[in-house]
């Protein structure tokens, strides 16, 4: 319990630092929100008077320190202000899109985790065999395929040629198939290789030789001994994938026009929409903190030898 509180306290610190750092770095980077947003809105280069008026109306002409202080004060009350571009509350912008991101994340992992376990464990069990060679070749291939290329290929085949699936949009089960398939390919490949290498490392340990000597079946040795002992790095990899998916998958969101948080955040970065960037970074950092905490708690279930007491 003490560990959980310690981690949470540290997590809050990390979230605020990450958010402030992203703001300060972007504040110092070229460009300002008024210029970018007005150019997008009008299609013309805005005049200096237009830029000044825009900044003035949104209190963006105050010094960096004042802006930072105001943001911190509001953030402590979980109010991240309004998007400069859309004039909507940042929290609304985040949670409207987070639902779509969460769907994509959970369904992608629901397919990729079992698939990766099957491929990784089977490959390790038949190390050097035909299945191992074939699976290693295909996982390497899958990891090398760029998501945008795969997404567009799927779209051309299943939407344009066969007309089976919608090429874009959100709201139907059919809309999920191609984005999920695009993500599952890469995530399954990465995870299955982690599982395979972790399994192989454990399969060469003395306790496996002992188990074999005791006449235990191959299935029991693989699942109860090798896999169980391999779960540490696998859980870490899954936690990391979970975090990355939740933080938004910009390429897939762009190709399939999926209304997740990734594309919106990237657009906000281009526009220098500071409240969105700060709010989103903080909330994404919060998700990483929670996922890491869950991963750490899971370690203690997987391997009871792991304890987090203060020494």
């Amino acid at each position, binding site marked *: 319990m003490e560990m959980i509180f310690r981690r949470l306290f540290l997590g809050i610190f990390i979230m605020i630092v990450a958010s402030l750092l992203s703001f300060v770095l972007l504040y110092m980077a*070229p*460009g300002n929100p008024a210029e970018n947003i007005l150019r997008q809105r009008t299609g013309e280069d805005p005049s200096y*008077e*237009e830029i000044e*008026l825009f900044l003035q109306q949104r209190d963006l002409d105050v010094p960096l320190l004042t802006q930072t202080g105001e943001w911190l004060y509001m953030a402590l009350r979980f109010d991240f202000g309004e998007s400069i571009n859309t004039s909507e509350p940042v929290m609304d912008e985040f949670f409207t899109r987070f639902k779509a991101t969460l769907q994509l994340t959970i369904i992608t992992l629901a397919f990729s985790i079992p698939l990766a376990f099957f491929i990784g464990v089977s490959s390790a069990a038949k190390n050097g065999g035909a299945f191992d060679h074939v699976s290693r070749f295909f996982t390497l291939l899958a990891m090398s395929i760029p998501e945008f290329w795969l997404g567009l290929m799927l*779209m051309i085949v299943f*939407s344009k040629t066969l007309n089976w699936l919608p090429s874009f949009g959100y709201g139907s089960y059919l809309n999920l198939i191609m984005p999920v398939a695009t993500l599952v390919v890469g995530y399954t490949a990465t995870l299955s290789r982690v599982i395979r290498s972790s399994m192989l490392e454990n399969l060469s340990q003395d306790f496996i030789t002992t188990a074999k000597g005791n006449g235990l079946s191959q299935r029991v040795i693989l699942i109860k001994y090798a896999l169980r002992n391999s779960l540490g790095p696998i859980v870490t990899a899954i936690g990391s994938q979970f975090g990355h998916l939740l933080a938004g998958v910009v390429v897939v*969101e762009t190709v399939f*026009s999926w209304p997740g948080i990734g594309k919106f955040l990237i657009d906000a970065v*281009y526009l220098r929409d500071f409240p969105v960037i700060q709010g989103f970074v903080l909330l994404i950092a919060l998700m990483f903190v929670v996922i890491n905490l869950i991963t750490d708690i899971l370690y203690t279930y997987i391997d009871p030898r792991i304890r987090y007491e203060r020494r």
Partner: protein
Amino acid sequence: MKKGVRALALLVIVAVLVTGFTGCTGAKANDKASANTKKILRIAAAFDFKSAMEGKTLVYENLVKSDMAGNFSGWLAEKYDISDDGLTYTFHLKKGVKFHDGSDFNADTAKLSLEYACNNTAVLGKSVSSIEVVDDSTLKVVLGTYLASFLNTLSSTSAPMICGADLEPVGDPKGKLTGFIGTGAFYFNEATYEKSVKAELTRFDDYWGGASKLDGVEWLYIADPTAMVVALESDEVDMIGIAEHHSSIPYVQIAELKSKGYTVETDETGRYQVIEYNCSKAPFDDVNVRMALNLAVDRELMVKTLFEDITKASNVITAPWFVLGPDKVDKNYYKYDQNRAKKLLDEAGWIDSNGDGIREKNGEQLELKLVVPQGEANADTVSVYLQSELQKIGAKIDVLTLESSAASDMKKAGDYNMYVHHSGNMPSIPGGIGIGDKYYSTNKDWAYSYHSAELDGMIDAAFTEPNTESRNNKIDTLWTYLHTQAPCMPLYSVLKLVACNPRVTGYEVGSNMFDMSNVRLLDMDMSK
């Protein structure tokens, strides 16, 4: 215990999945069904409806309207009078115009709209001195100083006609525009709007110009240009390209779409892609070098090889057919002539003395930094073409593609020799020649473009002249002078590309590259 944990985990996953899918339906089938019975035009758009200025032209209208060339006419103002000194505008408003909420458009709402515009548009706020309701259908606006671009600003999305209920707080011209309640041919349905997914607009039956033949418009967000083409070809949308002012359709797709029976409209809107020179430092502080480069590029060949001749090469700085465009300038002024270009460089002292193919002067090579802001239409391929053309006259081009903000900062700091840009698309003051515009010396954005006291004087004289004929003469002189100074290299005309399936009929390009209001004139043949 372990089984219990597993069961709990499974339950959580199922619960999340179910919760996540509560909004999921067989939407695609429904959409197709409704599209078959109703004339709903499905438009692909690269931006969310509320963020795109183009979408606003479906909902809002203005007092006046400009055509593509920059001729103004009344719109919600049936007609208008301008005083001789150009300071007083009297607008005679149309009667019988209603807002989407059923309220009337009249001089009071027009006044409120202009007050809102003055609060949000610096140039109006600075220039407008008073707005007076003369009677229910007459509005008088007095300017403190003459503003040549006044009608142009009134015709833009900066000055929409709104009603009090559209503002928050209600009726406060300093408030926020929230409701999308305009007088346009379609009204926006907030209840069915989904952020970054879609917006639905329904035909406004009380539209003063007669209800549209379409039942409605569906604004469908598609972020990727290739995905837009796929969506058109898989019959998920009816029209692409109309909702973006910079064409979202790759030029290379046009021939293929046409061959498949899609209608592809390619319209010039007067926006030219140009290369701006940094005239404040060598080598472009020498007019001979600027002129040499302008003569060294075969634009006709560029348009033919890169764009399959779908657009036109630009031989002058901006569209000559704009009412204030350079129509008196010799079209062959920058005609491709590499021999002349080489001679001009020789005269400027740039000679290839060591035979490496690159010219030198005072020990410096003719090596030029070309900055390309990301997102500038076709700029990457054009840059490569320029590299090869300019190498033939002994100039080495280093192409630097940067995120648009970073590129813009380099431009402001003068850290460039050449910069890919586009001419302004403001037909009443085209090509950056207005007071405070690109070629005016006080412009901080383009501080390193061509400026001179002589040019400033010409611009001041032209754009403070309320007499039309006199102003036009002054602008002709201005254009002639500017072309002799070769401040930029005009390249080609940027097109507005719109593709639609054969079901859609009656397309007419809007009054500028942002204007979608002509969607109201479309019809759909649902049997196709």
